[in-house]
């Protein structure tokens, strides 16, 4: 079967071999096969073959996100993402979606601080249509762009902000955390979705300048994955992307230093029944030393019923409705956050006392080998689960593009997993001790609005 050769996740032992008392198995490599080439205009292309279903995905990453935005123009990278679906030189407004739907295709895009991605999933017989559309907006977006188009999507984006921030319970907390963690000049200070006034101010001229600066083929990478023949796919990619004009590389960013020296404490109100506590720290960038250990710290503290905070706050004391912890990794800086909601009749102060006790304990004493292994086993499983779909957000093609963008190696899966397998219990303790000081963090409380 062709599909057996398409995605070569090294086979795990057969079920019968797994009936040992210890599930700990020797490390197994995860590899995703690909081929790679670069067009003369600078577009980097990665092909990945997988014939398990007759679908292909066209996954484009532009190496620009909200971190590249100018003052008073926050939210612009994301507003621009919306404009990429509004037609281009040879595609009238509306036709992008209509043509794809008529071919059985789906598409979407998303913007983060450091990148903007777009994907089109289509039946494999419509690969050329997807490449035509993706190349047309890369090469000819401005041919049909008008101030009216910008106005229309500005309204849509403002409603996206209302839906995901203002009208969502606790939705403004995330915005405030960024503002408290980073100084105003740091590009992670403002939210990806942007501020309403800045969305109002965004102009047609901004669109032209942003496209010319950041949407050149040399600032993008393309992964085409799924039911394809590499030689034929390469010919089609050369055909449709070959005439896209090259552009200059964006200037390097100067990132102001960001470090908390004390506690940034703030209380905001929202239309909610229960208060909520957010603790946040600035932590190492993704893939830097400490980043993987902090993922394990998050699991030891709040992953599952037996995690320390869940067990104490939710299971034993029953003073919290929920508690979560996560390392939010990104290219310029990461943050580690703990979020806890008290049960009715209890306070965030009660939760914070217990949370701080548990952080301090983890800073003093390494977790058990069992806790570390439990966390690493779950992370390892997540790598397999991420192999099940080729297209869409988080599919294999999206992951190849992510590893290529951030590590220069599309098939960096096994290296990524190895970061976790290499951790010792003391690495976990040391990360908690070094990166989660109680005296230098954000403490944000959301209180219910008074009637």
């Amino acid at each position, binding site marked *: *079967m062709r599909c*057996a050769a*398409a995605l070569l*996740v*090294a*086979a*795990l032992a*057969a*079920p019968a*071999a797994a*009936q040992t008392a210890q*599930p700990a198995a020797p490390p197994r*490599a995860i590899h995703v096969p690909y*081929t790679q*080439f670069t067009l003369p205009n600078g577009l980097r292309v990665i092909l990945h073959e997988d014939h398990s*279903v*007759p*679908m292909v995905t066209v996954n484009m990453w532009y190496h620009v996100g909200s971190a590249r935005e100018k003052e008073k123009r926050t939210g612009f990278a994301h507003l621009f993402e919306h404009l990429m679906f509004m037609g281009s*030189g*040879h595609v009238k407004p*509306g036709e992008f979606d209509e043509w794809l739907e*008529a*071919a*059985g*295709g789906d598409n979407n895009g998303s913007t983060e601080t450091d990148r903007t991605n777009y994907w089109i999933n289509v*039946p*494999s017989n419509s690969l*050329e249509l997807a490449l035509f559309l993706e190349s047309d907006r890369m090469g000819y977006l401005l041919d049909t762009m008008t101030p009216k188009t910008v106005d*229309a*999507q500005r309204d*849509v984006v403002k409603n*996206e902000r*209302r*839906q995901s921030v*203002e*009208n969502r*319970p606790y939705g403004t907390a995330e915005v405030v955390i960024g503002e408290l963690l980073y100084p105003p000049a740091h590009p992670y200070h403002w939210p990806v979705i942007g501020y309403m006034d800045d969305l109002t101010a965004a102009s047609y001229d901004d669109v032209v300048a942003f496209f010319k600066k950041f949407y050149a083929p040399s600032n993008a990478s393309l992964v085409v994955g799924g*039911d394809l023949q590499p030689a034929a796919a390469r010919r089609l990619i050369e*055909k449709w992307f*070959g*005439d896209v004009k090259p552009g200059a590389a964006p200037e390097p960013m100067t990132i102001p230093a960001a470090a908390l020296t004390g506690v940034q404490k703030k209380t905001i109100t929202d*239309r909610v*029944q*229960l208060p909520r506590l957010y603790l946040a720290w600035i932590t190492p960038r993704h893939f830097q030393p400490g980043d993987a250990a902090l993922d394990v710290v998050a699991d030891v503290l709040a*992953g*599952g*019923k037996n995690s320390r905070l869940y067990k104490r706050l939710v*299971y034993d004391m029953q003073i919290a409705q929920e508690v979560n912890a996560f390392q939010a990794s990104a290219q310029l800086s990461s943050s580690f956050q703990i979020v806890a909601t008290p*049960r*009715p009749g209890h306070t965030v102060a009660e939760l914070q006392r217990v949370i701080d006790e548990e952080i301090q304990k983890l800073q003093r004493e390494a977790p058990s080998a069992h806790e570390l292994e*439990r966390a690493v*086993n*779950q992370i*390892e*499983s997540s790598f397999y*689960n991420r*192999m*099940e*779909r*080729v297209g869409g957000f988080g599919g294999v093609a999206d992951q190849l593009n992510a590893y290529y963008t951030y590590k220069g190696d599309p098939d960096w899966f096994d290296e990524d997993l190895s970061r976790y397998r290499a951790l010792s219990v003391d690495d976990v303790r040391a990360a908690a001790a070094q990166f989660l000081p109680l005296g230098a963090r954000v403490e944000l409380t959301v209180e219910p609005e008074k009637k």
Partner: protein
Amino acid sequence: MRTPLIVLVVALAGGALAAQQAPDRTHPPQPGPPAPLKLPSIQKQKLANGLPVWIVEDHKVPVAQVNLVVFSGTANDPPGKYGVASFMAAMLEEGAGSRSALEIADAVDFLGADLGAASTIDVSAVRLHVPVARLADALPIMGDVALRPTFPRDELDRQRQQRLTSLLQGRDDPPTIAAVAFSRVLYGKGHRYGTPQMGTAETIKTFTSDDLRGYYTSAFRPENATLLAVGDFSAATVVPLFEKTFGAWKASGSAAPEKLPAAEPPAKRQIYLVDKPGAPQSQIRIGSIGAPRATPDYFPITVMNTILGGSFSSRLNNNLREVHGYTYGASSSFDMRLGAGPFAAAAGVQTDKTAEALTEFFNELNGILKPVPAEELARAKNYVALRYPSAFEATGDISRRLEDALVYHLPDDYFARYVQNIQAVTAADVQRVARTYVQPDRVVVMVVGDLKTIEPKIRALNLGTITTLTIDDVFGPKP
């Protein structure tokens, strides 16, 4: 261990061969011949106790998905005990066999497995997703959870508080308020579909271990269940493991499934408003009683809904989002169940455009009653039919398709004939089902928003009788 022999990484030299001639962009490329739909082959067997087992071998990724599916859901909650199925399912992992709640969670997490138990409208299930190498270790835990739950008293009290607090938090979220209120006024208190699956504060406070065990005993029975397995194994290797875990399972007590009453669509248009002071958007739901999953109109309804609000370039999304910019997205859906679930058009719209948005909703609900142009019909049918292969990509996708086939008694050739059944839908079919199920004069309109701002303009639309509801009317008194 690394297996470099089977890793194929071919780094081609950079740079294409020659300068490119600009391609002809005046017409979009046309599709090549379609690839044949490859359907998973289902191996159907039975264990010693008669429990049916459906197996699909899928060797792409070394994982296994195993679902024990029980054909009773929240729709089978007895009157006065709404929420018992959902509570029962939440308790399965809180103590089973000789294992405590914490022991179950630790064992599952240590294996890197996901194990979940849930009760939804028509089905209850225990579902396991695990690296295939750990399947044999995970199955005994799944077996305890599914077959030997103990419903410990102290865990029950903790879960009760957890659920009451969730219900309280539901009052914060406008989409949740709109959905709960819409179902309540459409189906009423006396029909199971009119109350959230979790139940109400009133019922949640009363459930005892005996209630939960009673529901469990009537539902979890080999003759009322099927085991599904999709993953990187052969039937020959997994059936003995399933036999060991589930083959000796026998039911006790008796089964007593509840029958749902029929639900009648509203006789005339009714408008309901729920106040959410200060809300920057209004959550709108407009709809009626839809159709059961077994309806012969399934394919025409699917196509009609795709045109109305089931795709990005659908009429509702195009009008309310792309043309008017009132919303981040507008949609419509038919929630088809064993009984007739709701049909609803939905959006969150900016507060100052609420009345304008309602007008556009009704323009589209009236518009779909007219004949649909051929090109729009063809696009909708292709959108649904041509991407059908992606419904069989991940193990979880395949197991969901199998669950649907089982729960809704779909014919053996259902998947094979799906594409042609969609393609056979005509414009006349679409118009007929639109006129049957989308009756703009007989709908419930639910609006959750800042009434101080939106109510005067909504009243001026003269859509029908207006009733104002409080959050307590929707959720009952605060727990």
